[in-house]
């Protein structure tokens, strides 16, 4: 028992300083976009429910790959609904997409440049879900109509770059521009992180175009990668039949083939988003089958 008590005391000793640390009270929203990185302060004082709602969405990865679909110079840059993002939403992410009521109060922030404003359907102030705007200019007529839940604190150049993107007649950007990833970070990381600068310069557009070109090239490799993946899959199934036999040499051959088969399969994973649902579901089941056999390896002894 003394040993147990000693371990318990040691654990408490090492963890007490951590428990005594001050609570992080200033969550910041970091938006990593194709145009660069921006930091926003979330208004947890006057719009606590909306700030918490956005925080949950960000932490669940809902905003990752969400595009900006509306850019009106001298007015707003607006994200689309989460459903329009590049990758489909997972079940747990969809669960979070529930409307939130309008939050306004006399002390709440106004619609000025850099404000984060939660979008909602026309005439339905309590229908805001995930789409939001970043204001490019003061727009007092929106005060009280939309929830302002944060403001820009760093990344003015990025916001300027976003506002200068050319758009079509429906204010949709001609060059796709997305939130690559959104994070909730403590305030200290804004001031102390020298790496998170604003990497915006005239080449960002070119970089974006390069990325699109790469994605297009990947699509053309689709057929080849399908054959590669299905080939490894067939190999796994064929070899698994050999597991019925248990000579040492055969087991060794089986092991090597299995590990290399799994290796080929896993390295082909980058093409997986291009497979159809049946192929990918079958691949997963094959992997589980593989785990099962490997867990039983040498059990015959």
């Amino acid at each position: 028992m003394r040993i147990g008590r000693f371990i318990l005391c040691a654990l408490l000793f090492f963890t007490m300083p951590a428990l005594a640390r001050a609570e992080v009270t200033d969550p910041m929203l970091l938006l990593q976009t194709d145009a660069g990185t921006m930091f926003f302060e979330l208004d947890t004082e006057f719009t606590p429910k909306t700030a918490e709602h956005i925080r949950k969405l960000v932490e669940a990865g809902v905003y990752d790959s969400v595009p900006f679909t509306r850019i009106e110079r001298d007015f707003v840059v607006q994200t689309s609904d989460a459903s329009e993002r590049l990758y489909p939403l997972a079940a747990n992410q969809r669960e979070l997409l529930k409307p939130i009521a309008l939050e306004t109060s006399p002390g709440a922030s106004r619609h000025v440049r850099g404000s984060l404003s939660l979008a909602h359907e026309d005439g339905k102030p309590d229908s805001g879900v995930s789409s939001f705007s970043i204001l490019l200019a003061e727009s007092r007529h929106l005060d009280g109509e939309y929830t302002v839940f944060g403001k820009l604190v760093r990344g003015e150049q990025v916001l300027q770059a976003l506002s200068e993107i050319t758009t079509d007649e429906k204010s949709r950007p001609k060059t796709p521009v997305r939130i690559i990833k959104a994070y909730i970070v403590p305030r200290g990381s804004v001031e102390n992180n020298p790496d998170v600068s604003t990497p915006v310069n005239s080449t960002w557009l070119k970089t974006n175009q390069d990325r699109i070109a790469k994605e297009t090239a990947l699509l053309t490799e689709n057929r080849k990668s399908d054959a590669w993946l299905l080939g490894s899959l067939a190999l796994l199934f064929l070899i698994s039949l050999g597991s019925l036999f248990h000579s040492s040499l055969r087991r060794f051959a089986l092991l090597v083939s299995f590990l290399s088969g799994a290796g080929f399969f896993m390295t082909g994973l980058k093409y997986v988003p291009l497979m159809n649902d049946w192929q990918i579901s079958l691949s997963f089941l094959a992997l589980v089958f593989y785990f099962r056999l490997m867990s039983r390896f040498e059990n015959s002894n």
Partner: protein
Amino acid sequence: MIAKLRGMNQSSSRPYFVNAFADFMLIGGASILFLALCAFVFKLNIEHLYPIAFWLNWVCNHPHFSATHYRLYAHREHSKLFPMTAWVIPSLIAIAAVASLQSADRMAPAFVKLYLLWSPYHYAGQVLGITLIYFARSGAKLSRFERNLWLFFCFSIFAASTVGAETARIDRHFYGILYPSLSLPDAFHRAVSFSMYASGAAVFAFWLKRRFSSEPAHWIVLLPAVSFYAWFIAGSRYSEFNLFVPFFHSAQYLIVAWTVQIAERSTKPGPRTSFSRWMKIESAKWYALNIGGGVLLFYLLPRLGKIAGSSLSVAEPVIIAAVQLHHFFVDGVIWKIKSTHGVNLVRTDLSQSKLNWEQAT
């Protein structure tokens, strides 16, 4: 003594490894209580929990990997019994790890992904194993159908959790190594979730049937699977809870490993002292060795990755994945080893070890 040892294989009305409280807490009760705390009592600040999780890693999670390796390599007869697992598999994994260190952008993500998919599967295997041990220890005889039902339930919890996570088409990172998602379809997730709930209801119905027909149906047989459900399904939305799942898994593992260690050592003649004192010394030695083993596997080994010309930021995740992949192989066989008297050691308990020790001493 052999007769007494053989007695350990017979059914018992006392299925615990240690006692009701210790088994309840370490096999999963503590995790369920902690989840209830996270869900219903108050929201814990995850920032404050990181250091606790960090220390628990070193005192519980890493030693549990070490315990497996200790059992395989500290006994020459064990490594002789499983030569592939002891020598061939680590060599192949080492080759794959070196290739991953050399090819951080292509091989390393695949290697890490393989480990991350296999890991929850391994959890499911452990839960099933402990469930079946509890059934055996409580004197219950499972039909083939009932056994398969339990197998299906445990692995469908793994499937529902993994498929759910793999429906998101977002690349995630493991210690900085970005790895791809499988991007599984939502319909597949719904199907495996349905299978999980259906098989869960079925195993519970069978358990109730046993209860009403006065067949052995101890409450503790349900605990491993219920905890597993709490870890991967009910608790998945609480990031502060997720942080401690590896700890709960390793605590579950260590209680079994420790009982086996004591059972095995108890049959050997020891110094004339009290059983309690002997057990404390044996436990301390074994635990200290495993703490050291954990440091070797998870601190020193990644730093050896530099020899392969890799930076620590790549070597650390790759070596951690390699160590754990080997653990998955070893774990599949190492706890099924019987004692020299043909006794399945995972079926022993502390009181039986005490009797053995008294006989041997």
